[in-house]
C-alpha cells in the first residue's frame, strides 16, 4: 500500500507545482481549441492570434479592466470539448468563447454554452450544422453561436465557377480529406461544376495524416478521361504532399491544383517547397494587398511570434477577427456581461482583416467575398488572381 501513497504524493506534487499561477481579477475570453494532439498545430496558431488581439486591446486600454485570453485544450476530441465547455461556463469571469476548431467538437460544445448562455464564436468549424442546430426544436437556450468563417458552400462553388469560366476547365478530379470541412468544400465544388456542365472524372477520399498519395496520383495521371486538374478539399499538410508528389510524377502545368483557405498558409511551402508554385487557393475576404488592416495583422503577427519560429496558420486571421468582433460587442455592451454581449454580437458590423463581418439570423457570417490567389513559391506569397 505504501507505494500507492508515494505515487499519490508524486501526482499531487506535479499538479500543484504546475497549478500555481497568478490569480488576479480580470475578464476572460476563453480560447477553446486543440492545444495538444494531432490538431495541436492549428489550435496553437489560433491561441497565438487571440492572445495577440488581447494584448493589443490591453495596450490600447480599450477596456476599464484587464482582459485575459484563457486557453482551454479540447484536443479536437468531442468528449473533451464538452468537458471544456462545462468548465468554461462554470467560470463567471468568461464573457465569450472563441472556438472550437473542428465541427465535431463545436456542435456538442455549443449545446453546453447555450445553457449558460455564453456566446461562442467559431473561427474554423465549417459544418453548417454548427449554427443550423439552433433552429431545431430541440435547441435549449437562446441563439448564441456565431461564426466568422463562412460555411463550405461559398468557397466550393466559387472555385468551381472559377475553374470552369476563368480557367476554361471541363474535366476535374475531386479529392477530399473525409472531414466535414474538406468533404463539404468538395461536395459544393462538385454541385456547381456539374451545374455548369463540367465533368467530375473521379472522386476519392483520403485520410488526414496520410503521407503517400503516389498510387492515387498515378491513377489520376493515367485516367483515360484525362482530367485537367484536381480540386482538393482539405488542409495544407495533405495539400502540400499532394502537390509535391504530383510534380514528382510529372503532373505539371497546365494540370492545375485548386484548393480552399485551409491550404492557403505559408505552411504549404514547408511541406511542398517549390512544388506549391502555381497552386490556386481560394480565400474568404478581399485580398490582403487591398486591405491595409489585413496586412497590418500579418505584419504584427510575424513581429509578435517570430522568436518562437511559428508561422501563421490557415485559420489564425479568423481567430483574430473573432476576438475583434467580440471586443467590439463588449465595448457596445458597456459591461462584460454574457447576455448583453450575445445581444450586441447579433448587431455586429465590423470591418477588419476579413473585410466587413455581419451575421445572419443563424449567426453565420454574411461576408461571402471569395478571392482566388495563386501560390508563389519564390517569396512564399499568395498574390490574388486578377
Amino acid at each position, binding site marked *: 500500500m505504501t507505494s500507492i501513497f508515494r505515487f499519490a504524493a508524486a501526482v499531487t506534487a506535479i499538479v500543484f507545482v504546475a497549478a500555481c499561477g497568478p490569480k488576479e481579477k480580470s475578464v476572460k475570453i476563453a480560447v477553446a481549441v486543440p492545444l495538444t494532439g494531432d490538431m495541436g498545430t492549428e489550435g496553437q496558431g489560433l491561441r497565438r492570434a487571440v492572445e495577440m488581439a488581447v494584448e493589443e486591446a490591453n495596450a490600447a486600454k480599450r477596456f476599464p479592466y484587464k482582459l485575459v485570453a484563457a486557453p482551454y485544450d479540447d484536443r479536437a476530441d468531442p468528449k473533451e470539448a464538452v468537458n471544456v465547455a462545462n468548465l468554461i461556463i462554470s467560470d463567471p469571469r468568461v464573457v465569450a468563447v472563441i472556438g472550437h476548431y473542428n465541427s465535431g467538437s463545436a456542435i456538442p460544445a455549443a449545446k453546453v454554452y447555450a445553457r449558460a448562455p455564453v456566446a461562442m464564436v467559431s473561427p474554423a468549424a465549417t459544418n453548417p450544422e454548427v449554427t443550423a442546430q439552433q433552429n431545431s426544436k430541440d435547441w435549449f437556450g437562446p441563439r448564441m453561436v456565431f461564426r466568422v468563417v463562412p460555411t463550405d458552400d461559398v468557397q466550393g462553388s466559387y472555385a468551381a465557377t472559377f475553374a470552369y469560366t476563368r480557367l476554361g476547365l471541363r474535366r476535374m478530379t475531386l479529392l477530399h480529406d473525409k472531414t466535414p470541412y474538406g468533404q463539404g468544400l468538395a461536395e459544393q465544388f462538385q454541385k456547381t461544376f456539374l451545374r455548369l456542365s463540367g465533368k467530375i472524372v473521379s472522386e476519392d477520399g483520403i*485520410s488526414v495524416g496520410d503521407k503517400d498519395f503516389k498510387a492515387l496520383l498515378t491513377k489520376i495521371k493515367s485516367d483515360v478521361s484525362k482530367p485537367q486538374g484536381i480540386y482538393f478539399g482539405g488542409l495544407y499538410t495533405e495539400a*502540400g504532399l499532394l502537390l509535391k508528389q504530383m510534380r514528382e510524377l510529372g503532373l505539371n502545368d497546365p494540370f492545375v491544383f485548386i484548393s480552399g483557405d485551409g491550404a492557403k498558409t505559408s505552411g504549404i511551402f514547408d511541406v511542398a517547397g517549390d512544388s506549391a508554385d502555381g497552386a490556386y487557393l481560394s480565400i474568404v475576404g478581399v485580398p490582403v494587398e487591398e486591405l491595409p488592416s489585413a496586412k497590418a495583422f500579418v505584419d504584427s503577427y510575424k513581429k509578435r511570434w517570430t522568436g518562437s519560429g511559428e508561422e501563421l496558420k490557415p485559420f489564425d486571421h479568423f481567430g483574430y477577427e473573432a476576438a475583434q468582433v467580440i471586443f467590439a460587442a463588449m465595448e457596445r455592451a458597456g459591461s462584460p456581461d454574457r447576455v448583453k454581449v450575445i445581444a450586441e454580437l447579433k448587431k455586429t458590423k465590423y470591418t477588419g482583416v476579413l473585410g466587413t463581418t455581419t451575421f445572419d439570423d443563424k449567426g453565420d457570417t454574411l461576408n461571402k467575398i471569395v478571392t482566388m490567389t495563386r501560390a508563389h513559391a519564390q517569396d512564399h506569397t499568395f498574390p490574388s488572381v486578377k
Partner: protein
Amino acid sequence: MLIQQLVNALTLGAIYSLIALGYTLVYGILAMINFAHSEVLMLGAFMALGLAALLPAIFGTGVVGLVGMFILSMAGAGVINVLVERFAYRPLRHISRLAPLISAIGVSIILQNGVFLWISTQSLRFPEPVAIGQVPVFGATISTLQITILAAALILMGLLHFFVERTKLGKAMRACSDDIQTAGLMGINPDYIIALTFFIGGALGGAAGVLYGMNYGSIKYNLGFLPGAKAFTAAVLGGIGNIRGAVLGGFILGILEVLASGYIPNGAQWRDVIAFTVLIIVLLVRPSGLLGEKIAEKV
C-alpha cells in the same frame, strides 16, 4: 502505369519493412510490443533534420554528408531506444507481460508531447539531401529519391541479415530469441543482448524516419504514429518475431495499399479497410502469420 505503381509500392513497402523490423526484433526476444517504436522513428527524423543543419560544416554536402547524417541519426535513435528499455521496460521485465506495454504507451506520449512542446508544433521542411531527378523507365517516371530509398532500405536489410546470421553477436541474439533463460545459462548476458537488440531496432527505426522525411519532404511531431501502427501490422502479417516475415509483411502492405488506392475507383478512402481485412483473412488461414513458425501448444 503498372511499373509506376510497382515502384510506388516498393518504396512504401521498403519504409514499412524497416519499421517492422524494429518491432519484430524486440518482439522476438521479449515478446512485447514496443509501442514507443513509432516515436523513435519520429525522433530519428528530427535528429536528421538537426544534423542536416550542422553537418555540412563538418562533412560537406554530397554523399559523405548524407551518409554521415544517416549513420548518426540511426545511432541516436538506437541510443534513445536503449534508454527507453533501460528505464521504462527493464524494471517490469519479469513482473507482468502487459505492464511494459502500458509503460511503453506512456513513453510514447511523453516523447511525442516533448517534441511538440520543445521542438516545434508545426511541420518542418526536411532538406533534400540529393538533387531529385526523374528517370524515365518504360514510360514510368521514377525519381532518384525513390531509388535512393529503396537502395538504402535494401542495404540495411542485407546488413541486418548478415549480422544476425553470420556474426557471433547475431548468434547470441538468435539464442536469446529462442530461449532467453537457457541462453543466460550458456554464458550469454541477456541484459546486454536485449540492449543490443533495442539499439539495432531503434537504429533501423531511425533510418526509416530519415527515409520517411526524405520521401515526404516534411516532418512533424506526430509523424510516427500511423506508419508505426501500419508497420506493426505488417510485422504481424509476416509472422511477428520473424525477420524475413517483417520484410515480407512490409512489402505486402505497401503493395496492398497501392493496389487499393491506385486501382479501385474511390478506393483511397477504403484503403485501410481493405488492408486490415486482408490481414484478418491471412491470419485466419495462417494464425502465426505468413512466415511465423507454428507455436507449439503450451503444456
